[in-house]
């Protein structure tokens, strides 16, 4: 029987690259997908010439443009994962190919994975943008292309041509190309030292002068912007040194491997290959594991499902693992309310006060987006609109947000401001993933009855308030009270009103507001309200012959008595948690 020889089908280097690509894909597609969805929502890639020209007009703009082009596909995280896997693998292949061209021995291949690994690590942070990764790829490709030009004359000409082009395309990272060309000519030794010196001086001057010229033409940015160019990081004030290390490695690795291959003689190459593979494999694994922030991934998962209105998935997520971050809890409470479960089950999950119900506004692009979702579904449409707008304006890289533009279109439709809604819809028509929704909605708004009867917009129109009042973050109870009294069918407003009182441990307001529930005509009072009502009754009633005026179940009363018995003796949170962790009493006594 013939022995199976894999190397006849696929070379080792290709095999390793494929494995790497597959691992990257699996990571982003299955372990880290919501980071990709998160990235996608904070940009708005438009298929218009103006959008392109806005990027193209600045150094580094092409990488930024391609970065936003790529990021739009993160709408579907698996496609996004595939793209990232492809780019990172391609980056490795280009570096490997450049090393090969410099006659590096192929057993050094594991080292060529290092830049891709490092960028993978950066990508675990949601604020690193795809444009940076594209810039690194273009830098590596330029180096690779450059060394493939055999004619010295044409190589020098191409360097002089490529340096300004590359500066425009990838911003300050082009300096590593300049460095490489000098190092390459020194290694090649095809021109004499004096010529190398002249060439080096010429391209150094050219490289140093380009950002100064750019600044003189494009005055509206500080000088630092012209040295960096690409938006590697969402916050433009930071100069990302970590990206500089990746760029340095892209420049350095082919030269290093050339040096190793020329100067060091290694007899047992397969051992070296094995050691490298182990180091890169084990090191890479622990590196990525340390970089990945799965708590953020969890928040992003909750947020994404909220955005997509997948309430059952949110509850399923919480059933799997009780969320603890305020924003996850915010999404969970919203999902419970949307499924009419908040009043029965909210204390079955971890609650962290009102911050986990409706977060306060801050000048940020994440929290207002999530808080705005709550206001939207409650029917406080203007506030939902404002929070969405503010979130978009808070984006530090001055991008617009597809999710926000969609929400602005929706809120304007609900308010009947069709002309403004049309503006947003026409913009969304120029995107890839929102186009069909925008087109469909543009048709819908031609017929008023379709909006009024729309399952969501029609409802929100019905529950939104006619009588004006000023939004006050400090008076959420009053706003919710007004909302509910305006439309007593708005159970969610009532549930949130009750939830605020309960989470604030404000039993007085709970008792005051509870009678409003009359319009909801409960057949059975929801579990949480029963718990609060009995508790208050037993706290305030001194006459044992009197009975509580609300129809609470005997089981709830019995449970409270059991709870009280244990609580009065042990006051031990742990022992009470087992049987009473899902009760309001437990929250009341033990939540700090």
């Amino acid at each position, binding site marked *: 029987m013939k022995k199976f020889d894999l190397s006849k089908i696929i070379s080792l280097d290709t095999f390793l690259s494929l494995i790497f690509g597959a691992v990257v894909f699996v990571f982003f597609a299955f372990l880290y997908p919501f980071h990709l969805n998160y990235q996608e929502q904070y940009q708005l890639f438009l298929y*218009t010439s*103006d959008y392109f020209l806005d990027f193209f007009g600045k150094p580094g703009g092409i990488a930024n443009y391609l970065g936003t082009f790529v990021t739009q596909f993160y709408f579907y995280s698996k496609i996004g994962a595939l793209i990232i896997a492809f780019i990172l693998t391609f980056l490795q292949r280009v570096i490997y190919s450049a090393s090969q061209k410099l006659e590096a021995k192929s057993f050094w291949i594991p080292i060529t994975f290092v830049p891709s690994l490092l960028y993978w690590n950066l990508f675990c942070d949601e604020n690193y943008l795809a444009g940076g990764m594209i810039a690194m790829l273009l830098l590596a490709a330029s180096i690779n292309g450059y060394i493939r030009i055999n004619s010295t004359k044409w190589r020098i000409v191409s360097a002089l041509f490529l340096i300004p082009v590359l500066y425009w395309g990838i911003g300050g990272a082009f300096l590593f190309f300049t460095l490489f060309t000098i190092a390459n000519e020194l290694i090649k030794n095809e021109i004499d030292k004096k010529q190398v010196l002249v060439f080096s001086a010429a391209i150094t001057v050219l490289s140093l002068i380009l950002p100064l010229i750019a600044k003189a033409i494009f*005055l*509206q*940015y*500080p000088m630092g*912007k012209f040295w960096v160019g690409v938006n590697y990081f969402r916050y*433009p*004030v930071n100069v990302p040194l970590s990206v500089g290390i990746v760029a340095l490695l892209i420049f350095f690795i082919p030269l290093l491997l050339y040096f190793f291959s020329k100067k060091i003689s290694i007899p047992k190459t397969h051992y070296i290959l094995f050691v490298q593979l182990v180091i890169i494999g084990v090191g890479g694994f622990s590196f990525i594991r340390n970089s990945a922030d799965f708590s953020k991934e969890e928040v992003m998962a909750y947020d994404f499902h909220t955005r997509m209105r997948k309430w059952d998935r949110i509850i399923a997520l919480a059933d799997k693992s009780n969320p603890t971050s305020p924003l996850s809890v915010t999404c969970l409470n919203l999902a419970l309310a949307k499924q009419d479960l908040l009043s029965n089950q909210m204390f079955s999950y971890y609650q962290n006060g009102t911050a986990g119900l409706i977060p306060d506004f801050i*000048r940020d692009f994440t929290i207002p987006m999530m808080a705005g979702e709550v206001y939207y579904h409650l029917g*406080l*449409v*203007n*506030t939902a*609109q*404002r929070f969405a*707008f*503010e979130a*978009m*304006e*808070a*984006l530090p890289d*001055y991008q*617009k947000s597809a999710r926000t533009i969609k929400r602005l279109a929706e809120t304007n439709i*609900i*308010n*009947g*401001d069709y*002309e*403004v809604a*049309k*503006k947003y819809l*026409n*913009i969304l028509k120029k995107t890839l993933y929102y186009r069909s929704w925008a087109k469909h909605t543009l048709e819908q708004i031609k017929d008023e009855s379709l909006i009024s009867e729309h399952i969501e917009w029609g409802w929100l129109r019905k529950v*939104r*308030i*006619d*009588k*004006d*009042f*000023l*939004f006050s973050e400090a008076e959420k109870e009053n*706003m919710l009270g007004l909302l509910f009294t305006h439309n007593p069918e708005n159970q969610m407003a009532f549930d949130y009103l009750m939830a605020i009182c309960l989470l604030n441990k404000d039993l007085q307001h709970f008792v005051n507001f509870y009678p409003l529930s009359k319009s909801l005509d409960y057949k059975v009072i929801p579990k949480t309200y029963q718990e609060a009502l009995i508790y208050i009754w037993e706290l305030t009633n001194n006459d044992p012959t009197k009975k509580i005026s609300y129809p609470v179940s005997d089981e709830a009363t019995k449970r409270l008595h059991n709870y009280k018995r244990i609580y009065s003796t042990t006051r031990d949170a742990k022992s009470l948690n087992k049987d009473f962790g899902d009760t309001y009493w437990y929250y009341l006594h033990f939540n700090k």
Partner: protein
Amino acid sequence: MYRLLISLLILTLTVVSCKQKITPDEVKHEKPSIFPDYTDVTVPATIAPLNFKMKDEFSKMDVVIEGSANKTIHLQGKKQIEISTKKWTDILEENRGKKIQITVSAKQKNKWIRYAPFSIFVSNDPIDHGLVYRLIAPGYEVYSKMGIYQRKLSNYKQDAIIENTLLSGSCVNCHSFRLTDPDDMSLHIRGKKGGTIIASGDDMKLLNTKTPKTISNFVYPFWHPSGNFITYSVNKTKQVFHESKAKRVEVIDAASDIIVYDVNNNETLFNAKLMQDSTFETFPSFSPNGRTLYFCAAEAKEMPAKYNEVRYNLCSITFDPESATFGDKIDTLFHASAIDKSVTFPRPSPDGKYIMFTLIDYGNFSIWHKEADLYLIDVKTGEVKVMDAANSDDTESYHSWSSNSRWFVFSSRRLNGLYTRPFIAHIDENGTVGKPFLLPQKNTDYYEQLLFSYNIPEFINKKVDLDLRTVEHLANTSGTNVTQRE
């Protein structure tokens, strides 16, 4: 053979380049519904071509523009009508003081429809070189990229004067020029590296404008015609947010005063009458002779609780530029509160005949008031009239005069109720207003795609040349503290 080929080529090119004459399938008696609405507007002869398109769906447009000298421009377009600058300029120049007629035919549902012709009146009155405005998203408290831009009126070229990208995290606002002359300019940079930039001739300084006696930094500016003074309001401003669908934002002052800044001596001049605790004083402006200071004043109320009870009147106080002193009494020129209305942005015409202002139901931040309309008061007679020709059902707010008082530019939300756009209108010496026109753009979809509002449109008589290197340098210094005149 060679000649024949050349002739054939020329003939082919001629046939291809000639616009086919349209034989309409239907002739309508109404004027076409076009965007922007340029029907029967009055324009200066130096305005950029007024490109337009049909509001309703169409597959092709055919337009004939005719002047009185029988010169015509025949144009066709599938997306819009794009007029060549040269031909447009020629026809406007030839028809100064007259009107040009435009006949529009549109292919709609496979039928050519010819509409009734409309006119554009070409005024003899010249207009200034350009406009300066701020472009900012019509948001709330947070801002993203924004900037102050200039736009030449005879073409579509827009240049940034300063963008907030220059100084990260900053906001730029309240640009102001002395009588449309950009040689004297004031603008604020808010943020860590903020201050008030005063550029006067070749001199530029960055001021820290908070003084112990004032409640805030300088806010709303207006230059004295001499260039020696700038009057500013100082305001404790806050935003509150409506929940009803009819309104969005309310910008309110919890306190406000007016001061005058002496540019040459770097001193702030105070007057007790303009800094009363019982009164909110804001939006100051100087008369063209520099001897009267106009402003808005309202009885102070508890804010924000009584935000909708604050009503500003149009007031004035005399000012002596020689001694830099104020008069003894405040005159009320228009008692708006008596009719339950409120005045904002009083802007005197450079010829001194009129003051244009915005009238709203309450408060002073008219851009968020749908009822905001433009009004004119005759300075001599005190007669107040609504500027119907300029107003719409939506907001008309900030406005400024051209240097010859024959044009004014104003911001309006009439296109969609949210995004503010600049409209220019003619006004004759009797105060008669022509139909305003939207600032023309090369691409008629420009405004639809733009996510910015036009803020504080101001005329300029020449290009603004702000030295950004000096601005950057000054922003990295601690700036100059303004002093108080005791």
